[in-house]
């Protein structure tokens, strides 16, 4: 018997076994989540599955959907900037018959066509956390006013530093991202300087990640040892920056501030590593989003415009003229634990 035939039959035996295994896995998965046909379906498309902010948002949406008796289908991009993944997710959700889609758009201009398609198909589309550009591409936006949050961060830093001459390091997220731009510009406004101001000592790209925040801070400190104020896009970047500052023996002298309100970040504020952070409220975005879709399904009424879900300055060293809450309040309201 030629070897070839032996191989072919062995191969097909293995193949049959593996297909059976695959079908079994899938069958289990399907059993876990089959949907009744008449249910109201809400889609949630977040940026990534790895960021605790979006995990919190998703958990809150799941809880609210259960309360309201609607079905939530959650999808996410694979990485920051995965436009194709988000577009495909919205396409699939339209196919699945979703009544409303809550989306945190990665790159706002990349999503416009598919959002329009969804709305044309009668789907309510609400942007969570990140506005689209133009903002009226979606029915409504439930988000932190990131510019305002940036202003809060910048204003705190400026006031807390008193009259000290500033040398500011900007630890940005991913250049070109909408949130990134709003927070960055807001910080500068709050700090009272313009882009290109000589007191800006330099900028680094962190992708909102701790390791890159650390590297960026190290490089900026090597370039300019005078740095005494640090803007960070989020708390992981701030944690990285703190590690670098500590290595340079400058951790006590630098006004390190951040945005997010993750529990780890709030603890960093409590422990004095970060001077202040600006908390935002992902669970509010999610629950408000679910409520809006439920209302739309029942009455046909759509929300509209920008709805600020709020931002709160968290610090244990308040300054005059700026509202803030202490870390005890912050730890009760934070996300990500």
């Amino acid at each position: 018997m030629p070897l070839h035939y032996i191989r072919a039959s062995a191969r097909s035996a293995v193949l049959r076994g593996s297909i059976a295994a695959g079908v079994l896995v899938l069958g289990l998965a399907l059993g876990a989540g089959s949907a009744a046909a008449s249910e109201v379906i809400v889609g949630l498309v977040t940026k990534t599955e790895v960021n605790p902010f979006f995990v919190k948002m998703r958990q809150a949406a799941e809880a609210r959907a259960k309360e309201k008796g609607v079905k939530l289908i959650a999808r996410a991009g694979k990485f920051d900037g995965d436009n194709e993944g988000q577009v495909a997710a919205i396409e699939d959700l339209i196919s699945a018959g979703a009544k409303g889609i809550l989306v945190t758009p990665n790159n706002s201009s990349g999503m416009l066509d598919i959002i329009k398609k969804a709305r044309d198909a009668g789907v309510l589309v609400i942007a969570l956390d990140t506005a689209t550009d133009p903002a009226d591409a979606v029915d409504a936006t439930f988000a932190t006013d990131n510019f305002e949050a940036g202003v809060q961060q910048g204003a705190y830093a400026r006031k807390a530093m008193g009259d000290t001459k500033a040398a500011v390091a900007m630890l940005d997220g991913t250049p070109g991202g909408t949130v990134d731009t709003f927070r960055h510009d807001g910080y500068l406004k709050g700090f009272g300087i313009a882009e290109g101001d000589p007191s800006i000592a330099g900028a680094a790209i962190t992708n909102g990640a701790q390791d890159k925040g650390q590297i960026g801070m190290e490089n900026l400190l090597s370039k300019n040892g005078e740095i005494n104020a640090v803007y960070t896009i989020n708390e992981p970047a701030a944690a990285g920056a703190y590690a670098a500052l500590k290595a340079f023996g400058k951790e006590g002298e630098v006004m390190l501030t951040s945005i997010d309100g993750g529990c780890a970040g709030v603890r960093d504020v409590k422990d004095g590593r970060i001077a202040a952070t600006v908390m935002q409220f992902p669970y509010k975005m999610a629950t408000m989003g679910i409520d809006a879709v439920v209302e739309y399904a029942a009455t046909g009424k759509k929300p509209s415009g920008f709805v600020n879900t709020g931002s709160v300055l968290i610090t244990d060293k308040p300054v005059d003229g700026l509202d803030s809450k202490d870390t005890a309040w912050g730890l009760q309201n934070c996300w990500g634990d």
Partner: protein
Amino acid sequence: MNTATVYPAEAPRSLKARILGSPSAGPLLVLFGFCVIFALTNPRFLATHNLSIILQQTVVIGALAIGQTLVILTAGIDLAVGAICVLGTIVAGKLANLGYDPVLSMGIAVLICTAAGFAAGGLVSGLRLPPFIVTLGILGILTAALRLISEGGAFPVRDPFLAWTGNTMKLGGFVLTYGVLIMFILYASVWYLLNQTKWGRHVYAIGNNVEAARLVGIPVRRHLLSVYVLAGLIYGIAAWLALGRIPNADPNAMQSANLDSITAVVIGGTSLFGGRGGLVGTLIGALIVGVLRNGLTLAGIDPLWQDLITGILVIIAVALDQLSRRRR
């Protein structure tokens, strides 16, 4: 001296043996199996517009996977697929937005992608560097270059020609984008090259046994170079398809395209050791990934299951390849 015995030639391989032995038989069964399951769980799955959407979602990775297949068939690997394709979208979008003729802009973008393939192929064949390292290096260089060219940000590309591949047409009640059509044309043309021409046969020979290819007089280096150049050209065309999908040039896009395209190739039954497999399998592999993602969403299942099942399929595919290699 022995008396020479005349042996009759054995019968050609039977049709059944051919089909079972064909490397795309397994993937096709898997694809079919998933389609049946999804159709049973949610009738919407088989709606023509949903099937059309799955095809549209497969366009970019499907096209990139053609180039990836070519490179893997020569026992190489291409980690720069996504970066080269994004380079194409940014160059074309930038030039068109600056007011240059859109056809010219796209042409230049495709040329630049081809040149990137030429650079990779030159380093692999000329300096005999490992493809893994060369393409990893090109990935790094391009990622940085893209940030510089685009000044960090994504920008919309509104030119109708650049976005043309996203336009739809009707094909017997089935709505398709031109991009889907172009992807199929790419598959058909490269399939022809691989299976019906000397060039393709030499691709397999090099991937199979590079020493033998050299000994029979195949110009191995030049041939390898041509493979990478063709792959680059395909990535350039994929950039046009990507602009049709999302009329937006984003330096941060397609970070997972390397692994996604390799996944499609591997699930499709092409061996990472080179010389075995082919484009039919790759197309099926790309469709399996698309069908899984779409079908699970329609069934209302956590999308993490998609990654899990894809992971299992990749391991099964590689294990089957290893098993059959060990038997040889």
